[in-house]
């Protein structure tokens, strides 16, 4: 009886571990394949049959990538929008959250109703476009930054975080004659590092990955983001003949597919780099703001 129970457990364990290993492999291998393809000669990759390591190692893909001003520009725009968009988004969202975290704030019910309503209802893309247009934000770097400065989702999370901070901290500063601005910068922000880190990383990843605004609201070639460029090259190589055309370019063996995987590596790499820090915080962050069963 006991033995058969143990055997059953063993069978069950094996199934669980096998299934999870398959899932993990399915998640991981695509990233690995993209990586080895970016270090392989493009024309050789097209022959197929490369699964575990680069067959014809080359840095040519990265050289073409780095030498192309189009890619470099897109990379710099993406870095600039990620840094400034995250910093400003963090600043405004946390400032507003700080004010709203005061339980005795007048009209707070009205403010909260405005926020919650805006989370559920939206005017849709077309009216939004008209608003951006009349503000003169179309075709400018500001369109990446300004509309995302107030993040309603993180606003609510930040409010509940600030409310956990002991009131004595603020009171003693009040006694010493500190104004709200000083309290916010000198007391609230320094003790809120876990929250700020979570917000910064999510806003940063959002900015880094964003391509819709570049596609909808920007025509200038100088303002294209990395992800937008990637989308462009992916759409191009959708046409099968294109990969051949690029392969004929001097420089040898670089195809649009190999450029595509290279740009993917460049775009994924920063995320992988912040991932360990991200992971430490986001599980808690998600719990904080999300559903309670």
């Amino acid at each position, binding site marked *: 009886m006991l033995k058969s129970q143990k055997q*059953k457990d063993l069978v*069950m364990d094996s199934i*669980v*571990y096998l299934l999870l290993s398959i*899932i*993990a492999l399915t*998640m*991981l291998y*695509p990233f690995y394949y993209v990586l080895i393809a970016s270090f392989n000669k493009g024309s050789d990759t097209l022959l*197929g049959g490369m*699964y575990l390591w680069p067959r014809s190692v080359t840095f040519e893909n990265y050289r073409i990538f780095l030498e192309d001003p189009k890619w470099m520009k897109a990379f710099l725009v993406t870095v600039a929008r990620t840094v400034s968009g995250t910093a400003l988004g963090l600043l*405004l*969202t946390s*400032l*507003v959250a700080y*004010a709203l975290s*005061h339980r005795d*704030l*007048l009209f707070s019910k009205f403010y909260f109703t*405005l*926020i919650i309503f805006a989370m*559920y*209802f*939206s*005017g*849709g*893309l*077309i*009216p*939004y*476009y*008209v*608003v951006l247009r009349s*503000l003169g934000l179309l075709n400018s770097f500001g369109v990446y930054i300004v*509309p995302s*400065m*107030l993040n*309603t989702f993180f606003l609510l999370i930040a409010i509940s975080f600030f409310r956990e901070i002991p009131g004595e901290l603020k009171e003693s500063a009040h006694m010493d004659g500190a104004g*709200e*601005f000083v309290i916010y910068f000198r007391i609230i922000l320094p003790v809120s590092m876990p929250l700020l880190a979570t917000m910064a990383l999510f806003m940063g*990843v959002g900015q880094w*990955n*964003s*391509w819709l605004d570049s596609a*909808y609201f920007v025509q200038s070639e100088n303002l294209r983001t990395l*992800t937008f460029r*990637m*989308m462009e090259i992916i759409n191009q190589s*959708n046409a099968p003949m294109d*990969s051949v055309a690029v392969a004929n370019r001097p420089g040898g063996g670089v195809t649009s597919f190999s450029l595509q995987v290279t740009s*993917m590596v460049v775009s994924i790499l920063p*995320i992988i780099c912040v*991932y360990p820090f991200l*992971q430490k915080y*986001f*599980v808690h962050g998600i*719990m904080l703001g*999300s*559903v309670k*069963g």
Partner: protein
Amino acid sequence: MQLETNLTGAEVHRGQIWKRFKKQRVLHLFVGLGMIFLVIFSYTPMFGILMAFKDYSISDGIKGIFTSDWVGFRYFDEFVHDYQFGKIVRNTLVLCFLKVIFAFPAPIVLAILLNEVKSMPFKRFVQTISYLPHFISWVVVVGVSYAFLSADMGLVNKALLQAGFIDQPLNILTSPNYFWGLAVGSAVWKEMGWWTIIFLAAITGINPSLYEAAEIDGAGRLARIRHITLPGMKGTIVVVLVLTIGSILGGGLVGSNFEQAYLLGNSINNPTSEIVQTYAFKVGLSDGRFSYASAIDLIQSVISVILIFSSNFIAKRVSGSSLF
């Protein structure tokens, strides 16, 4: 007499409010700054909904939303009679339906599987990897699917051809037959691990003594999953399901329908990949038909709102747990 005291009471009260407001003026300044953003980027576009009932032209600017001529339901009527209407509505609904059926249970299954793992390092390893795709943009996900599935350079087709399983490459990316599977598959791949966090948290909240008691009563592991783990997750499952159904037209929790349909769609798989959002985008921003596109957008928003309220209502009735 009584009236008088009431009046003075109100006056005193009003004076107090003003005093409090003056004391809080810096805080209201902070909030006001945020409200300006909210009004500009969330509320002004809501007024833009009027566009759907008007003959709006982009050269009228933002004032044109109010000043242009009313046309009533002309654009709604036009959409319903659009020759693509049936196809678009069908694709939108089928995609949502398939995602609720397949993409919604996937994280629940993963959470239960992970909960059965005793080795912590292995559990952490699988979890860490399963979140990763959530942080990668849809563009990269589509790039990955090209690298694996495209007919001329995709790894899968090359491997199947070399192994002799197929004679002709499968046109997974450029055939209407595969699009729905592709969309659901990529949504599961990208978001499954992420939503597992919430379900694992729900499992963590289950009282461990329940498992001990069940084990003493002779319940096997499958029985424990069925009678303790699943019921323990019920509340969370309901809430996430409500959220999913409410936002399903937008793709919601199981991945953006628009980004998928826009990026994976092409002229060949269009019969199954064109959805309301991509169509509104094309007639709106590409063809410059702003009023028509707003009308299409509005229909979609109204259906979304109806969905979230009705699913919330049903959830409250059926299980007692709900979102609001």
